[in-house]
Protein backbone atom coordinates (compact mmCIF):
# COMPACT_ATOMS: atom_id res chain seq x y z
CA UNK A 1 0.00 0.00 0.00
CA UNK A 2 2.96 2.34 0.55
CA UNK A 3 3.69 4.22 -2.65
CA UNK A 4 7.40 4.36 -3.51
CA UNK A 5 7.65 8.15 -3.18
CA UNK A 6 6.79 8.15 0.54
CA UNK A 7 9.00 7.16 3.47
CA UNK A 8 6.26 5.56 5.54
CA UNK A 9 2.48 5.15 5.91
CA UNK A 10 2.21 8.09 8.27
CA UNK A 11 3.79 10.47 5.79
CA UNK A 12 1.60 9.09 3.00
CA UNK A 13 -1.57 9.70 4.99
CA UNK A 14 -0.38 13.17 5.97
CA UNK A 15 0.19 14.05 2.32
CA UNK A 16 -3.30 12.76 1.37
CA UNK A 17 -4.98 14.78 4.10
CA UNK A 18 -3.01 17.92 3.21
CA UNK A 19 -3.88 17.49 -0.48
CA UNK A 20 -7.57 17.07 0.35
CA UNK A 21 -7.49 20.24 2.42
CA UNK A 22 -5.96 22.16 -0.48
CA UNK A 23 -8.91 20.98 -2.59
CA UNK A 24 -11.38 21.91 0.16
CA UNK A 25 -9.89 25.42 0.27
CA UNK A 26 -10.77 25.78 -3.42
CA UNK A 27 -14.25 24.55 -2.53
CA UNK A 28 -14.51 27.16 0.22
CA UNK A 29 -13.67 29.84 -2.34
CA UNK A 30 -16.11 28.32 -4.85
CA UNK A 31 -19.05 28.49 -2.44
CA UNK A 32 -17.58 31.76 -1.11
CA UNK A 33 -18.40 33.48 -4.40
CA UNK A 34 -22.06 32.53 -3.97
CA UNK A 35 -22.09 33.67 -0.34
CA UNK A 36 -20.53 36.94 -1.56
CA UNK A 37 -23.40 37.40 -4.02
CA UNK A 38 -25.84 36.58 -1.21
CA UNK A 39 -24.35 39.23 1.12
CA UNK A 40 -24.21 41.90 -1.57
CA UNK A 41 -27.74 41.45 -2.92
CA UNK A 42 -29.21 40.99 0.54
CA UNK A 43 -27.66 44.35 1.52
CA UNK A 44 -29.30 45.89 -1.56
CA UNK A 45 -32.72 44.18 -1.31
CA UNK A 46 -33.25 43.26 2.37
CA UNK A 47 -37.07 43.14 2.05
CA UNK A 48 -36.96 40.76 -0.92
CA UNK A 49 -34.77 38.47 1.17
CA UNK A 50 -37.22 38.40 4.09
CA UNK A 51 -40.20 37.83 1.79
CA UNK A 52 -38.38 35.08 -0.12
CA UNK A 53 -37.24 33.36 3.06
CA UNK A 54 -40.86 33.19 4.25
CA UNK A 55 -41.66 30.90 1.31
CA UNK A 56 -39.13 28.25 2.35
CA UNK A 57 -40.26 25.29 4.44
CA UNK A 58 -38.40 25.71 7.72
CA UNK A 59 -39.48 22.28 8.95
CA UNK A 60 -38.03 20.46 5.92
CA UNK A 61 -34.86 22.56 6.08
CA UNK A 62 -34.50 21.77 9.77
CA UNK A 63 -35.06 18.04 9.20
CA UNK A 64 -32.37 18.08 6.52
CA UNK A 65 -29.98 19.86 8.90
CA UNK A 66 -30.48 17.11 11.48
CA UNK A 67 -30.16 14.41 8.79
CA UNK A 68 -26.80 15.84 7.69
CA UNK A 69 -25.53 16.05 11.28
CA UNK A 70 -26.47 12.36 11.66
CA UNK A 71 -24.60 11.58 8.44
CA UNK A 72 -21.51 13.42 9.70
CA UNK A 73 -21.60 11.35 12.90
CA UNK A 74 -21.82 8.06 10.98
CA UNK A 75 -19.07 9.28 8.64
CA UNK A 76 -16.76 10.03 11.58
CA UNK A 77 -17.60 6.63 13.08
CA UNK A 78 -16.84 4.94 9.72
CA UNK A 79 -13.35 6.49 9.68
CA UNK A 80 -12.87 5.42 13.30
CA UNK A 81 -13.98 1.88 12.44
CA UNK A 82 -11.32 1.78 9.71
CA UNK A 83 -8.72 3.06 12.18
CA UNK A 84 -9.49 0.28 14.66
CA UNK A 85 -9.84 -2.31 11.89
CA UNK A 86 -13.56 -3.06 12.31
CA UNK A 87 -15.01 -4.37 9.04
CA UNK A 88 -18.56 -4.37 10.39
CA UNK A 89 -18.21 -0.84 11.77
CA UNK A 90 -17.05 0.50 8.42
CA UNK A 91 -19.75 -1.19 6.37
CA UNK A 92 -22.63 -0.31 8.71
CA UNK A 93 -21.59 3.33 9.14
CA UNK A 94 -20.89 3.87 5.44
CA UNK A 95 -24.31 2.43 4.53
CA UNK A 96 -25.95 4.69 7.14
CA UNK A 97 -24.07 7.69 5.73
CA UNK A 98 -25.32 6.86 2.22
CA UNK A 99 -28.89 6.43 3.53
CA UNK A 100 -28.82 9.80 5.34
CA UNK A 101 -27.40 11.48 2.23
CA UNK A 102 -30.18 9.97 0.14
CA UNK A 103 -32.87 11.10 2.60
CA UNK A 104 -31.48 14.62 2.32
CA UNK A 105 -31.82 14.57 -1.48
CA UNK A 106 -35.37 13.14 -1.36
CA UNK A 107 -36.47 15.93 1.02
CA UNK A 108 -34.77 18.45 -1.27
CA UNK A 109 -36.71 17.05 -4.23
CA UNK A 110 -40.04 17.71 -2.48
CA UNK A 111 -38.91 21.21 -1.56
CA UNK A 112 -37.93 22.02 -5.14
CA UNK A 113 -41.19 20.56 -6.47
CA UNK A 114 -43.18 22.87 -4.15
CA UNK A 115 -41.20 25.88 -5.41
CA UNK A 116 -42.14 25.03 -9.00
CA UNK A 117 -45.81 24.62 -8.00
CA UNK A 118 -45.86 27.98 -6.21
CA UNK A 119 -44.28 29.83 -9.15
CA UNK A 120 -41.19 30.73 -7.17
CA UNK A 121 -38.67 29.62 -9.79
CA UNK A 122 -37.02 32.67 -11.42
CA UNK A 123 -37.92 33.13 -15.06
CA UNK A 124 -41.05 33.75 -17.16
CA UNK A 125 -43.31 31.77 -14.79
CA UNK A 126 -42.27 33.64 -11.65
CA UNK A 127 -45.31 34.90 -9.73
CA UNK A 128 -45.95 38.37 -11.31
CA UNK A 129 -47.59 39.61 -8.08
CA UNK A 130 -44.22 39.43 -6.34
CA UNK A 131 -41.47 42.04 -6.23
CA UNK A 132 -39.11 41.12 -9.11
CA UNK A 133 -36.14 41.55 -6.71
CA UNK A 134 -37.29 38.32 -5.06
CA UNK A 135 -36.12 36.52 -8.19
CA UNK A 136 -32.58 37.37 -7.06
CA UNK A 137 -33.24 35.65 -3.74
CA UNK A 138 -34.67 32.56 -5.43
CA UNK A 139 -31.89 32.50 -8.04
CA UNK A 140 -29.36 32.35 -5.23
CA UNK A 141 -31.51 29.86 -3.30
CA UNK A 142 -31.56 27.47 -6.26
CA UNK A 143 -27.90 28.01 -7.16
CA UNK A 144 -26.58 27.60 -3.62
CA UNK A 145 -28.77 24.65 -2.61
CA UNK A 146 -28.51 23.14 -6.12
CA UNK A 147 -24.71 23.11 -6.13
CA UNK A 148 -24.79 21.85 -2.56
CA UNK A 149 -27.13 19.04 -3.66
CA UNK A 150 -24.77 18.26 -6.55
CA UNK A 151 -21.97 17.92 -3.99
CA UNK A 152 -24.22 15.52 -2.05
CA UNK A 153 -24.69 13.38 -5.18
CA UNK A 154 -20.92 13.32 -5.72
CA UNK A 155 -20.47 12.47 -2.03
CA UNK A 156 -22.91 9.55 -2.25
CA UNK A 157 -21.13 8.15 -5.33
CA UNK A 158 -17.83 8.55 -3.47
CA UNK A 159 -19.26 6.70 -0.47
CA UNK A 160 -20.48 3.85 -2.69
CA UNK A 161 -16.91 3.45 -4.01
CA UNK A 162 -15.49 3.58 -0.48
CA UNK A 163 -18.14 1.08 0.68
CA UNK A 164 -17.09 -1.32 -2.08
CA UNK A 165 -13.43 -0.99 -1.00
CA UNK A 166 -14.36 -1.42 2.68
CA UNK A 167 -16.51 -4.47 1.82
CA UNK A 168 -13.47 -6.10 0.21
CA UNK A 169 -11.49 -5.46 3.37
CA UNK A 170 -9.08 -2.98 1.78
CA UNK A 171 -8.76 -0.77 4.86
CA UNK A 172 -6.89 -1.40 8.09
CA UNK A 173 -5.30 0.47 10.99
CA UNK A 174 -2.25 0.99 8.74
CA UNK A 175 -4.10 2.00 5.56
CA UNK A 176 -7.32 3.99 5.74
CA UNK A 177 -6.45 7.14 3.75
CA UNK A 178 -9.33 6.88 1.23
CA UNK A 179 -11.98 6.66 4.02
CA UNK A 180 -10.39 9.56 5.91
CA UNK A 181 -10.07 11.80 2.83
CA UNK A 182 -13.60 11.04 1.55
CA UNK A 183 -14.84 11.76 5.06
CA UNK A 184 -13.24 15.21 4.93
CA UNK A 185 -15.22 15.93 1.76
CA UNK A 186 -18.45 14.69 3.32
CA UNK A 187 -18.00 16.86 6.43
CA UNK A 188 -17.23 19.87 4.26
CA UNK A 189 -20.54 19.49 2.42
CA UNK A 190 -22.25 19.30 5.83
CA UNK A 191 -20.53 22.55 6.88
CA UNK A 192 -21.87 24.35 3.78
CA UNK A 193 -25.40 23.34 4.79
CA UNK A 194 -24.79 24.51 8.38
CA UNK A 195 -24.43 28.02 6.92
CA UNK A 196 -27.10 27.72 4.22
CA UNK A 197 -29.85 26.67 6.64
CA UNK A 198 -29.95 29.84 8.83
CA UNK A 199 -29.09 32.20 5.97
CA UNK A 200 -31.81 30.92 3.63
CA UNK A 201 -34.54 29.47 5.88
CA UNK A 202 -34.47 31.42 9.13
CA UNK A 203 -33.81 35.07 8.28
CA UNK A 204 -37.46 36.17 8.18
CA UNK A 205 -38.78 34.24 11.17
CA UNK A 206 -38.86 37.08 13.69
CA UNK A 207 -41.14 39.27 11.55
Amino acid sequence: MLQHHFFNMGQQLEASVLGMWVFLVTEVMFFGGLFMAYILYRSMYPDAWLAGSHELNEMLGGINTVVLIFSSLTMALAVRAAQVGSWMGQVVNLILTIIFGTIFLVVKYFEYAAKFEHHLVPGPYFDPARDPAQQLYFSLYFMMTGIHALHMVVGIVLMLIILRMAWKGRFSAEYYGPVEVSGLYWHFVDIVWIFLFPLLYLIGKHH
Partner: protein
Amino acid sequence: MSHISSKGLYYTIFGTLIAMTVVTVAIARIDLGALNTPVALAIAAFKATLVILFFMGVKYNTPLTKVVAASGFLWLIILFGITMGDYLTRAWIGFPGR
Protein backbone atom coordinates in the same frame (compact mmCIF):
# COMPACT_ATOMS: atom_id res chain seq x y z
CA MET B 1 -1.77 11.61 12.29
CA SER B 2 -3.04 8.30 13.53
CA HIS B 3 -4.99 9.81 16.38
CA ILE B 4 -8.14 7.84 17.19
CA SER B 5 -10.92 9.77 18.92
CA SER B 6 -13.22 7.98 21.34
CA LYS B 7 -16.79 7.25 20.27
CA GLY B 8 -17.88 9.25 23.31
CA LEU B 9 -16.25 12.39 21.90
CA TYR B 10 -18.08 11.94 18.58
CA TYR B 11 -21.43 11.46 20.38
CA THR B 12 -20.77 14.59 22.46
CA ILE B 13 -20.00 16.67 19.35
CA PHE B 14 -23.09 15.23 17.66
CA GLY B 15 -25.29 16.15 20.63
CA THR B 16 -23.88 19.67 20.73
CA LEU B 17 -24.51 20.13 16.98
CA ILE B 18 -28.15 19.01 17.35
CA ALA B 19 -28.62 21.27 20.40
CA MET B 20 -27.14 24.25 18.53
CA THR B 21 -29.50 23.59 15.61
CA VAL B 22 -32.46 23.78 18.00
CA VAL B 23 -31.02 26.97 19.55
CA THR B 24 -30.59 28.68 16.17
CA VAL B 25 -34.18 27.83 15.15
CA ALA B 26 -35.49 29.15 18.49
CA ILE B 27 -33.44 32.37 18.45
CA ALA B 28 -34.56 33.12 14.88
CA ARG B 29 -38.07 33.68 16.32
CA ILE B 30 -36.90 36.42 18.68
CA ASP B 31 -36.54 39.90 17.22
CA LEU B 32 -32.99 41.02 17.96
CA GLY B 33 -33.10 43.87 15.47
CA ALA B 34 -29.92 44.02 13.41
CA LEU B 35 -28.38 41.23 15.49
CA ASN B 36 -30.46 38.30 14.20
CA THR B 37 -28.12 37.46 11.32
CA PRO B 38 -24.85 37.98 13.27
CA VAL B 39 -26.13 35.68 16.06
CA ALA B 40 -27.22 33.03 13.53
CA LEU B 41 -23.81 33.26 11.85
CA ALA B 42 -21.99 32.99 15.19
CA ILE B 43 -23.90 29.78 15.98
CA ALA B 44 -23.20 28.41 12.48
CA ALA B 45 -19.49 29.28 12.83
CA PHE B 46 -19.39 27.53 16.20
CA LYS B 47 -21.01 24.41 14.69
CA ALA B 48 -18.63 24.49 11.71
CA THR B 49 -15.64 24.83 14.06
CA LEU B 50 -16.73 21.72 15.99
CA VAL B 51 -17.08 19.74 12.75
CA ILE B 52 -13.67 20.92 11.48
CA LEU B 53 -11.76 20.35 14.73
CA PHE B 54 -13.25 17.02 15.79
CA PHE B 55 -15.17 15.26 12.98
CA MET B 56 -12.52 16.29 10.43
CA GLY B 57 -9.82 15.90 13.06
CA VAL B 58 -7.94 19.09 12.24
CA LYS B 59 -7.19 19.43 15.95
CA TYR B 60 -4.93 16.38 15.60
CA ASN B 61 -3.42 17.27 12.20
CA THR B 62 0.02 18.72 11.54
CA PRO B 63 0.56 22.51 11.79
CA LEU B 64 0.90 22.66 8.00
CA THR B 65 -2.57 21.16 7.45
CA LYS B 66 -4.01 23.51 10.08
CA VAL B 67 -2.59 26.55 8.29
CA VAL B 68 -3.91 25.36 4.91
CA ALA B 69 -7.37 24.71 6.40
CA ALA B 70 -7.44 28.15 8.00
CA SER B 71 -6.23 29.88 4.83
CA GLY B 72 -9.49 29.16 2.99
CA PHE B 73 -11.48 31.04 5.61
CA LEU B 74 -8.91 33.86 5.74
CA TRP B 75 -9.30 34.45 1.99
CA LEU B 76 -13.08 34.29 2.40
CA ILE B 77 -12.92 37.15 4.92
CA ILE B 78 -10.74 39.14 2.49
CA LEU B 79 -13.24 38.50 -0.31
CA PHE B 80 -16.23 39.63 1.81
CA GLY B 81 -14.37 42.51 3.47
CA ILE B 82 -12.94 44.19 0.40
CA THR B 83 -16.04 43.69 -1.77
CA MET B 84 -18.45 45.06 0.83
CA GLY B 85 -15.94 47.77 1.75
CA ASP B 86 -16.28 48.91 -1.84
CA TYR B 87 -20.07 48.61 -2.24
CA LEU B 88 -21.04 50.07 1.14
CA THR B 89 -18.83 53.16 0.75
CA ARG B 90 -19.67 54.05 -2.85
CA ALA B 91 -22.47 56.41 -1.84
CA TRP B 92 -20.19 58.34 0.53
CA ILE B 93 -18.52 60.37 -2.20
CA GLY B 94 -21.77 61.05 -4.06
CA PHE B 95 -20.45 59.43 -7.21
CA PRO B 96 -23.36 59.07 -9.68
CA GLY B 97 -24.37 55.70 -11.09
CA ARG B 98 -23.16 53.43 -8.32
